[in-house]
């Protein structure tokens, strides 16, 4: 049987990962906005909030698309991941184009927040996941990060 005809059933680890990232993003949101506000003023603070919201939406949408497609088939998951990349990039572009001339938006603040928060939250999460995978005994919550789930034919 072709591997593409298989499906990955069971728990959806990407949902857990993205939920974790979103939770951490919301926790650090005030700090990010204060830092941006100190550097760029009030417009910078609002732009940082918008940038962070776009990043968190991006993670959430990516996880939702993969967790929807994976139990159906791995082929659909491949397609959804690639077209999802295009879709999410398009949505971020659209959001930025819509607010580019708005008075309360500072584009440098928005752009830098998008890059810094995206990479920062990823490294933060990766550090936790790497530790969980390397030392399963130290995993804070074994049910949250399953090391395996079944991949079955539909």
């Amino acid at each position, binding site marked *: 049987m072709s591997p593409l005809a298989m499906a990955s059933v069971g728990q959806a680890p990407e949902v857990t990962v993205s939920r974790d990232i979103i939770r951490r993003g919301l926790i650090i949101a005030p700090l990010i906005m204060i830092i941006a506000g100190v550097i760029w003023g009030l417009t910078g603070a609002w732009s940082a909030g918008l940038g962070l919201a776009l990043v968190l939406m991006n993670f959430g949408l*990516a996880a939702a698309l993969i967790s929807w497609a994976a139990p159906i088939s791995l082929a659909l998951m491949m397609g959804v991941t690639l077209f999802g990349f295009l879709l999410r990039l398009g949505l971020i572009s659209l959001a930025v184009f819509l607010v580019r001339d708005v008075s309360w938006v500072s584009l440098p603040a928005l752009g830098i927040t998008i890059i810094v928060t995206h990479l920062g939250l990823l490294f933060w999460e990766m550090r936790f996941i790497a530790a969980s995978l390397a030392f399963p005994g130290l995993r804070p919550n074994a049910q949250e990060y399953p090391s395996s789930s079944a991949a079955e034919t539909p």
Partner: protein
Amino acid sequence: MEAIAQLIAAEMTPAELKNNAAAASAGYAYGLAAIGPGIGIGYLVGKSVEAMARQPEAAGMVRTTMFLGIAFTEALALIGFVVFILLKFA
């Protein structure tokens, strides 16, 4: 080609030429920055599917790693996008 360039230069002010060059550069920056991550994500997901097919019991770990890999690869496209908006609009 040179004649066309001279014709364009003759009809445009230096400021217009600069704006046009910035717009073209921004477009190239965004387009080229999206190609690499596109290839990367395709390769990454393809290999992940292969891994899940070979070792179904490790699918959870593979999906976790795949998701993080996709997000890291996508960061390159986001950097290209930010360079684009800064060149074009800032």
